[in-house]
């Protein structure tokens, strides 16, 4: 049951991360795939790990048409840190969780930028980091929303 939840939320995240949007809205798009990964790693750290994240990232590379491996790299890095943190984060209040999510998405975006700036052009200015903030801001609602689709594990 839970793997279905994972696959479905991942498909939705893929869909929303390539959905065409007006140019001004493009910067405000949260990193959906990273959010979905973080959610499931916090929930099922023994099922969703670095290698799942790697394959998810490879899918995102193909979908976005960028150099193969760059999202695979950044998301496996994210999965590693999320895996380290999941025990503590589960008991955090929502706003603290959001801060952790901001940090994790930040790690992912730094990795993407490092690779991208060495192979192609990147967006100048602080606008690039906006998705990081947006992802953290929607995290409380996002986690509650995904929570509807499965029973909470007994911790």
């Amino acid at each position, binding site marked *: 049951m839970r793997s279905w939840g994972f696959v479905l939320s991942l498909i939705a995240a893929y869909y929303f991360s390539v959905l065409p949007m007006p140019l001004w809205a493009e910067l405000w798009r949260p990193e959906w795939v990273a959010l979905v990964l973080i959610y499931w790693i916090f929930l099922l750290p023994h099922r969703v790990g670095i290698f799942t994240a790697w394959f998810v990232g*490879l899918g995102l590379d193909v979908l976005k048409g960028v150099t193969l491996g760059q999202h695979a790299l950044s998301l496996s890095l994210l999965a590693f840190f999320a895996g380290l943190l999941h025990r503590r984060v589960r008991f955090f209040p929502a706003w603290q969780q959001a801060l952790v999510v901001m940090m994790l998405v930040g790690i992912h975006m730094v990795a993407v930028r490092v690779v991208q700036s060495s192979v192609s052009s990147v967006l100048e200015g602080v606008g690039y980091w906006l998705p990081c903030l947006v992802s953290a801001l929607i995290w409380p609602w996002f986690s509650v929303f995904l929570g509807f689709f499965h029973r909470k594990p007994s911790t």
Partner: protein
Amino acid sequence: MFAKRNASGLPGLFVAMSLSLVFIFLDEKTTHLQPLRYALAYFSAPFYFAGDLPSQATQTLVDRLHSNDDLRETNAQLQQQILLLQLRVQKLAAMSAENVRLRELLSSSSRLDDRVTVVEIIGMDPDPARHEVIINQGANKDVRPGMPVLDSEGLMGQVVVVEPYSSRVILLTDPTHAIPVQVNRNGLRAIAVGGGRLDKLILTHVPDTADVVEGDLLVSSGLGQRFPEGYPVGVVSRVKHHPGLPFALIEAKPSARMNRSRHVLLLRNDNKNSDGK
């Protein structure tokens, strides 16, 4: 998809990261990963087509909501436009025949008419720093990399990646794209590099003394064997001479409507009739 035993911890991270670095290197420097990308593109096509559904739905809705009077009015306008265009085509036919005769006299190769198909833009690159769009035809309709794409106003870009059911088109304004152009007025050649904004091209390495003024039309020069000769590329919007710089700063505004066109034309020539000398 799920790893049986979760490889959390440093060894797993190390393996994943080295694998990614190998992938990045292979994909940047070689073509070994092309088959893999092509195979995985079967999985990405549904996302592109589904992503286009919302805008298509709004389009249908808007079409339905047109009033009868509106339709009649546009119809009348279009009829007039057709008349005007037909008039121009009549002149053009005579002129192109004359052109062919003159070229025969000069014993240079003749220019064929370009074969075009109408394609639809179904997606945009989500990264604002990359100007790429996705069109709804791919290997299934025999699209090939390098085919130029234009709209009714001018050149838009070229196909860079062909996927099974869609292709990616890089726009002229992408900072990594450059196109050989010439000034229509005097034939001065230059390279137009993408300016990173949808309304900006930059002419590089043009001498300070070159005869370029604001309002000059830039057309593709056909050098480089990629784009056909003579299609409008942009209009010079700013010329600045700076005594401290070796070259003039020249900006142009692309003729094609980069972010408005939905239906665009794909030029299906095999780079042979663009004036093969």
